[in-house]
C-alpha cells in the first residue's frame, strides 16, 4: 500500500526534527540538570565534586524569601489576570460573531508589539512626573504625586499588561465551547443562577483557567526586564535571580537549580491541566 518513495522522505523529516529537538532541547536541558549538581568554580564556572549544595542553597531561608516573594508577585499577576480575564472572556463570547473577530484581532495587536517598548511606555505613565500623576493632580484628586514607579505594584502592573492576552485567549476558547444546552438543562432542573455558575460553569471552564494560569504564571516568574525597568532593580523575579547567577555572580549550579524549579513548576501545572481536561471528558461522557 505504501510506496517505497515515501520512506526516505519520512525518515529524513523525522531525523531532522528529532535531531533538532535532541540537540537543541533535550541535550541542553540535561546539561542544566548536570550543572545544578556540580560545584561552583570561580575560574571554569563548574567543577567536579557532585553534590546537592545548589538545591540546599535554594532552601536557605535567605534565598527562600527571594523565591517566595517572586512567587507571590507571579501569583498576584496571575490572579489579577484571571479576575480581569474571566469576565472579559465571558463577555467576549457573548458578542456577535462578526464583532468577535475584530475584538480578538484587537486583543492580539499589543501582543505583536515589542514587549520592551510597551513596558517602557508604562514607565511614561506611572512615573512621578508621568501622565497618570499629572492627570490625577489636574483634576484635583491628589495634591502630591503618588509613588507608583519602582514599586512592587508597578512590577505587577507591567506583568499583567504584558500577559493578559495569554489568560484571555484560552478562557475565551472554553467559553466558546461551553454547551449552551448544558446550561439550559441546569436551569430546567431548577438550579439558580449562582448555583449554575458554581456547579456547571466553573468546573467546565477549569481547563481554560489552568491553561491561562500556565501561560501567565510561568512567564511572570521569568520576565526579568520588567523589574529592571519598572521595579527599580528591586522586587526581583526568579528570572532575575537566574540571570544574575549566570551573568553576574557566576554561580552556575545555583542558577541551574533555580531554573529547574521553574521547570518543575511547569511540569506540575501541565499535569494539573491534563488532569482537569480528563475529568471534564469523563463527566461529559
Amino acid at each position, binding site marked *: 500500500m505504501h510506496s517505497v518513495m515515501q520512506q*526516505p*522522505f519520512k525518515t*529524513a*523529516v523525522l531525523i*531532522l526534527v528529532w535531531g533538532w529537538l535532541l540537540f537543541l532541547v533535550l541535550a541542553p536541558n540535561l546539561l542544566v540538570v548536570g550543572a545544578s549538581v556540580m560545584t561552583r568554580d*570561580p*575560574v571554569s*564556572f563548574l567543577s567536579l565534586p557532585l553534590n546537592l549544595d545548589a538545591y540546599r542553597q535554594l532552601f536557605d531561608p*535567605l*534565598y527562600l*524569601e*527571594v523565591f517566595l*516573594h*517572586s512567587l507571590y508577585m507571579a501569583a498576584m499577576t496571575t490572579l489579577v489576570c484571571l479576575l480581569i480575564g474571566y469576565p472579559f472572556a465571558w463577555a467576549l463570547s457573548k458578542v456577535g460573531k462578526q464583532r468577535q473577530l475584530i475584538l480578538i484581532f484587537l486583543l492580539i495587536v499589543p501582543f505583536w508589539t515589542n514587549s520592551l517598548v510597551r513596558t517602557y511606555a508604562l514607565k511614561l505613565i506611572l*512615573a*512621578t*512626573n508621568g501622565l497618570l500623576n499629572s492627570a490625577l493632580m489636574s483634576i484635583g484628586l491628589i495634591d502630591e*504625586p503618588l*509613588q507608583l*514607579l*519602582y514599586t*512592587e505594584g508597578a512590577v505587577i502592573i507591567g506583568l499583567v499588561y504584558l500577559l493578559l492576552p495569554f489568560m484571555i485567549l484560552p478562557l475565551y476558547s472554553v467559553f466558546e465551547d461551553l454547551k449552551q444546552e448544558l446550561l439550559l438543562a441546569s436551569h430546567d432542573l431548577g438550579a439558580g443562577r449562582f448555583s449554575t455558575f458554581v456547579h456547571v460553569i466553573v468546573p467546565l471552564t477549569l481547563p481554560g483557567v489552568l491553561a491561562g494560569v500556565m501561560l501567565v504564571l510561568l512567564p511572570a516568574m521569568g520576565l526579568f526586564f520588567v523589574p529592571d525597568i519598572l521595579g*527599580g*532593580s*528591586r*522586587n*526581583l523575579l526568579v528570572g532575575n*535571580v537566574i540571570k*544574575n547567577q*549566570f*551573568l*553576574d*555572580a*557566576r*554561580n552556575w549550579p545555583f542558577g541551574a537549580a533555580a531554573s529547574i524549579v521553574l521547570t518543575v513548576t511547569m511540569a506540575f501545572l501541565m499535569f494539573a491541566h491534563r488532569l482537569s481536561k480528563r475529568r471534564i471528558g469523563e463527566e461529559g461522557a
Partner: protein
Amino acid sequence: MKKLALAGMLAVGLTGCSSEEPQVLNLYNWSEYMPQEVLDRFTEETGIQVVYTTYDSNEAMYARLKLLDDSAAYDLAVPSTYYVSKMRQEDLLLPIDRSKIEGFDNLDPELVNLDIDPENKFSVPYLWGTTGLAVDTADIEGEPVTAWEDLWEDRFDGRVMLTNDMREVFHVGLRVLGYSGNSTNPDEIEAAYEKLSELMPSVRTFNSDAPRMPYLEGETDVGMIWNGEAVMGKDTMESLEYVYPEEGIIAWLDSFVIPKNAKNPEAAHQFISFVLQPEISALISEEIGYATPNLASRDLLPDEVANNRASYPNATDMINAEFQTDIGDDALQVYAKYWEMLKSGR
C-alpha cells in the same frame, strides 16, 4: 529531498553572510562613559568603526568576558581598579605594547604604577572619579545632608537612590559602621547588611545605568551618585548638588585593558593613543564630568570644568576617601549573597 537540501543550503548560505566586515573595534564600556563625538572622530581619522557595547557593573563585564572566552570579540574594556588586578592575575589580559601607545607620559604619576598593575603592563588609566552623595536641594527640607549616615533619616523615606553596584553600596554600609569599605571580614559584611537593610524601606531604586536619571525624573531626592553623573545632571537640573560625605567618598580609577581574546588589538592600541591626546582627554572630561588622569589636558580644560569640585576634588574633599581594592573571590561570594538578599528584601 529537494526541500531538505534547499533548507540545508539556506542555513549554510545564511550563516555565511555575516562575516567580511571592514575594520572594527569592539569597545566594551560602562554605559554613557564615552561621548559619541570621540567615537565619530576616531572613525573619521582611522577608518575603524567602533562598536560600543555597554555594561552596568564590573561583575557583569567580567562574567561576560569569562563566559564568552574564545568567542569574546571585545577589543577593549574599562574595568575599575580592583578588577584590573583580578583580571591581570587570572591571565585574562593582553600586555599593552607601550611602543604603540603615544602620550602615556602625560598621565598623572600618582595614578600610574599602582599596586593593581605595577608598571602598567596591562592597563592604561582612562578616567578616575568618586562616588558621593547626590542631593536635590530644591526638594529637601531641614538640615543639609552631609554624611552617608543622613540617608537613614526618616524624612527621606522612599526618596533614596543607591547605585546598582554591590561593592559601592556595601562600601557605604561599612563606612557608616566605621569599617573599611574593602572589608573581607564576613562579620563586618553581615553587620553592613543589617545596617543597609534598615535603609531599604527608604530606597526607591537602584541604578547604575545612569544614576542621575532618577533624580532628574523626580523619583528620588537624595542618595548615591557618581561625580560625572552629578555634573551631567546639574546641566539639566540646577538644584542637584554633589556632596562629599563625612565618612569619606568612594574613589575609583577605570583603565583601558585589552582582553586576551581581542580580535583587533592593533585598533585597541590606536584607540588608547587617540584618547590620550590632550585635546581628546579634555573633551571627554568636559562632556561627561569625570576627572581625566591626563595632566597635559588639564590646561586645555575650560575654567568652569577644571575648578568644578565635583569633577576635580581638592585635598579636603579627599579626607577619608578610600580607593576600592581587590578583595578576592571568597569575600565577593559573601557580598553577593547579602547583595541579593538586600535587593529582594522590602
